[in-house]
C-alpha cells in the first residue's frame, strides 16, 4: 500500500523533536540523523504518518530525536515491532533504527526474517563495529583480532558482513553510506524510503570513544575518492580522484583498472545494474574490501518484489470478496447449531 506522500513542503526542522540529542560529541550518528531528517522532509510524508522504531543501543535513541510517532523498544526486537506496525497500518512510513549488535546479534533472527518477508520498512543499520552503550565489547561485525574489553587478546570470531546476510535472506534492497559523506548518504536513504520492501542501509558510522577510526581508512577526505566508489544504477563503475579508475570483470572476479592504461577505455568499465534480480555481481561489489578494492557506497541492490504487508492486504481483499462472512453475527451463523 502507498504511504501518504503529501504536497506540503516539509523541512528537516519539521522532523526534529524538542529533545536534546545526547550522543557523544563527534559520534557518526549525528550525521546520519541529519541526513535522515533531510530525507524525511524531501519525501513529503507528514511527521504524523511516519513511525520510527528502534531496539536498544546508541543508535536506537534516534526515535527520541525525531518528530514523528516514535517507539524505542527492547533489544533486538525492532524489526519485529516494525513489522507489526507496518502490517497493522501499511499507510505509515516505517523506519527501523538499529545497530550492529541490536540488528545482527540479539536481533539477527528478526532481521533476516523481516528481510525475507520483504516488509516495507526502511532499516538504517548503524554499523560502528562495536557495542557502544555497554561500553566497548566486540560486536558481530568487529574485525577479527580487534582488541576490546571483552576481547582483551583480540577477537577470535569471524565477523558478519551485513550485505551477505541481506542477500542471503533474499533482500530486495541494499545500500551503504559513510556517515561523513552527507550528499551520498541522503541519496541512499531517499532511495531506501522510495523502495517498496525491506530496504537495508548499512551506515558506516564512527564510534569516537570505543572504535575510533574503524572506517577511518575511508573517511579521510583527501584519499576518500580513491578508496570509495559510489555505485549508481545505469552508470559506469568509475572512481578515484582523477575519475580514471574503474571496475571490470576478470573471469568471475572483479578487477580494478585504470582508464587509459593497457588499452582500457570507459566502454570497458562495468555499468551498475542495481535492478538485476541475480545477486552475483551485486554481492561481489558489496563485499569489496581495501586496499585492493574501493569500498562500495550507494544503492547496490534495488529490485521490485511484492511486499509482505501489501500481500496481506491483497489476500484479505480477495477472501473478503468471496466470503459471505462479514460480521460477527455472520460468523456465528456458520456454526452447526441446534435448539435446546
Amino acid at each position, binding site marked *: 500500500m502507498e504511504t501518504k506522500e503529501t504536497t506540503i513542503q516539509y523541512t528537516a526542522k519539521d522532523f526534529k*523533536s524538542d*529533545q536534546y540529542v545526547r550522543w557523544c560529541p563527534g559520534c557518526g550518528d549525528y550525521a546520519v540523523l541529519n541526513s535522515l531528517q533531510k530525507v524525511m522532509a524531501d519525501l513529503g510524508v*507528514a*511527521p*504524523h*504518518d511516519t*513511525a520510527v*522504531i528502534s531496539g536498544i543501543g546508541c543508535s536506537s535513541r534516534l*526515535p*527520541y530525536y525525531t*518528530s*514523528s*510517532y*516514535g*517507539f*524505542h*523498544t*527492547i533489544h533486538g*526486537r525492532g*524489526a*519485529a*515491532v*516494525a*513489522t*507489526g*506496525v*507496518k*502490517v*497493522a*497500518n501499511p*499507510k*505509515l512510513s516505517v523506519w527501523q533504527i538499529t545497530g550492529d549488535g541490536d540488528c545482527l546479534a540479539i536481533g539477527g*533472527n*528478526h532481521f533476516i*526474517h523481516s528481510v525475507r518477508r520483504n516488509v516495507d520498512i526502511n532499516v538504517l543499520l548503524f554499523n560502528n563495529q562495536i557495542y557502544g552503550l555497554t561500553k566497548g565489547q566486540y560486536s558481530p561485525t568487529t574485525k577479527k583480532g580487534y582488541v576490546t574489553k571483552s576481547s582483551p587478546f583480540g577477537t577470535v570470531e569471524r565477523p558478519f558482513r551485513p550485505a551477505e546476510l541481506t542477500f542471503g535472506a533474499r533482500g530486495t534492497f541494499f545500500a551503504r553510506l559513510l556517515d561523513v559523506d552527507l550528499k551520498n548518504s541522503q541519496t541512499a536513504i531517499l532511495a531506501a524510503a522510495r523502495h517498496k520492501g525491506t530496504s537495508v542501509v548499512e551506515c558506516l558510522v564512527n564510534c569516537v570513544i570505543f572504535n575510533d577510526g574503524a572506517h577511518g581508512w575511508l573517511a579521510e577526505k583527501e584519499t576518500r575518492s580513491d578508496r570509495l566508489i559510489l555505485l549508481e544504477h545505469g552508470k559506469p563503475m568509475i572512481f578515484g580522484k582523477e575519475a580514471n579508475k574503474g571496475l571490470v570483470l576478470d573471469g568471475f572476479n572483479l578487477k580494478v583498472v585504470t582508464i587509459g592504461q593497457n588499452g582500457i577505455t570507459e566502454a570497458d568499465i562495468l555499468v551498475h545494474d542495481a535492478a538485476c534480480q541475480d545477486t552475483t555481481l551485486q554481492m561481489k561489489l558489496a563485499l569489496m574490501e581495501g586496499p585492493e578494492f574501493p569500498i562500495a557506497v550507494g544503492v547496490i541492490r534495488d529490485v521490485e518484489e511484492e511486499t509482505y504487508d501489501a500481500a*496481506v492486504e491483497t*489476500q*484479505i481483499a480477495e*477472501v*473478503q470478496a*468471496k*466470503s459471505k*462472512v*462479514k*460480521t*460477527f*453475527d455472520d*460468523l*456465528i451463523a456458520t*456454526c*452447526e*447449531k*441446534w*435448539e*435446546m
Partner: protein
Amino acid sequence: MDKTKTTELDNVVVRFSGDSGDGMQLTGTLFSNLSAILGNEISTFPDFPSEIRAPLGTIGGVSGFQVHLGSSKIYTPGDDADVLVAMNPAALKVNASSVKKGGIIIFDTDSFEKSDLDKAGFKTDNPFMELGISDATQLIPAALSSLTQNSLDGFGLDNKTVLRSKNMFSLGLICWLFNRPIDQAIHFLENKFGKKPDLLHANVKVLTDGYNYGNNLHLTISTFIVEKSHETPKGTYTSISGNKATAWGLIAASQKSGLQLFLGSYPITPATDIMHELALRKDMGVKVVQAEDEIAGITSAIGASFAGSLAATNTSGPGLALKSEAIGLAVMAELPLVIIDVMRGGPSTGLPTKTEQTDLLQALYGRNGESPAVVMAASTPADCFHFAFMASKIALEHMTPVILLTDAFIGNGTSLWKLPTLAELPGIYPNYTKKGMEDVKVTSRDEETKVRYWSIPGTEGFGHRNGGLEKDYYTGAISTDPENHQKMVDTRAEKIKNISQFLPDLVIEGSDEADLLVIGWGGTHGHLMSAVQSMNKKGNKIALAHFNYINPLPKNTIEVIQRYKKVVVCELNSGQFATYLRSNVPAVEFLQHNKVQGQPFTVAELEECFENLLK
C-alpha cells in the same frame, strides 16, 4: 429385534481409544455433536500423545477422546468411562483402569492377534485377564477391520483407505448402543466429505453397517437412552472448543471496539488452534503474522498495538517465558495487549499435550522490575469466549497487557455454547485522545483511573515517543529521577489495582454457613463444581469460590473468604494460587489439594479429599 432391555441413564461417559491414526478424535466429535443435537448436555476431552504417529499399536501412540453426555447439567468430560471403544490392545491397556465396574468394552478382535498383543507388551494371550478386568465388565467383540472390509467390498478403494473407515463402524455400533438415529450422523458426514463423494459413500455405508451389526448382534446387553436435558437454558447452541472460543472472543472484541484484530503468533502445542482459527478469518479482516519465534510473535503484536490495533499473541508456558521481556515493554509503554497462555505440563518442554495450571506465578511475577499486568483465567471451553472478550476489553480500556490463562484441558475440550449476538456483548471504549487535546504527553492519563490516553499513529497533532525507558510523569520525556520513578511505579500498580472496580464480585456457589470453602481457579471449575454439588446432595455443606480474575482479585475477595472456618485451595500445580492468596488474604489459613500429573482432577478424588477435610 432382539434387544432385551434398554436402560435409561442420567449421564454416560464414552471413551474412544486407538492409534493416533485411527480417527478417534473425529469419531468422538461426531458422536458428541450428534448427542448435543438430540438435546443432551455434552462435555468432551481429547487426550492425545505428542507424537503425531508413534509406531502402530504401541502404548505411546494411543489417542483418546472422551465424551460425557447427560440429561442434566454436565460440568466435566467425566472421570471413568461407561463405555470404552478400544481399537487395539494398547488402547485397552492404557484405558482399562478407567472403565467403570460393569462398564462395556467394545474392541476390534482383528487387532487382538498375537503380534498386536506383543506390541502392547502383553505377556499372555488373554489381555483382559492380564489387566484384571472384572467379570462384571461386558465385552462386545467385533471384527471391526474385516467387517469394514466386507462392508466396502466392491467399492474399489485401496485397503488402506478401507481400514481407515473402521472408525465409522465403531461409531455405528455406538449409535446403536445409545439408540441414536444415524440420519444425523450421516448428515455430519455429508458436511465433512461433501466434496469427496467416494469417501462419503464409503463412510456412510460403513456407519450404517456398524449400526445394523449392533442390531443383529442378539446380545443380551442393555442399550442406553440418555434423555434430553431440561436444565439447559433455552436457546440456540453449538459445541465449541476452548481454543476456538478464545479466537472468536477476540474477533467479537475486535468488532465491538471497531478495531482491526492482529495476532502475532508462533506455533506451540496446545495453543496453535487459536492461530489456525484466526488465520481463517481474513474475511473479517483479521491479520495473523506467523512470526519467526515467540518473541517476534509478541513484539509484532506490540507494534500493531502501538499502531492502533487490538493486538494479541497466543502461546503456552515455554512461549510465555520467552515473551516475558516484551510483556514488560507493554507494561512500561502502557499499550493494550492480550496474551493467551494455553497452559501445558512443564517445566521446560514438559508434557506438551497434557494439562496443568503451573504457569500462574509466571504470569503474575515472571518479569523484571515492578511489572504489574492483569491476569485472568477461563474456566470452561465455552467461557473462553467470554474471557477472551473481557481480556480484550480490559486491555483496551485500561491500556495494559492482559494475560489470559486457559489450559490444554479446556483449550482442546469442548462444551455446549449458547450462541451470542454481537449486540448483547458489552461495549468497548478505549481512552483515546481527542481533538483539542493536542498538548497531551505520552504519559498523560485520566487521574482517577490512571489510564493513559491513547494516540494512534497517523493522527495529526499527537506524535509522541514511547518506549521501555522510564518516563517523566508530566512531560513523558525519559527520566531517571528517583522520585519520579517511584511515582511511575506506584501509578502503574494503582492502574491495575483500580481495575477491580470494573470486575464482577466473586460469587459463591453454596451457603455462607458451609463447613468447607473450596477455592479453585480456571479450568478446574467443572470438576470442582461436580464434586461440590455431589457432596452437597449427600447432605454435606460445602461452598465453592471459583476465580476467573486473579490480578486484580475481585474486590469482595477478602470479605468472602474470611466467612469460612475451613478453606482449601484446589489446583493443578503445587500450590501457586494458594501462595498468592496467602499474600493477599494473610488472615486466613489456606489448606491445599494439589495434583501435577498432566491430567485434570477427577470428581471422585475431589470428593474423597473433601470428605477427609470434613471429618
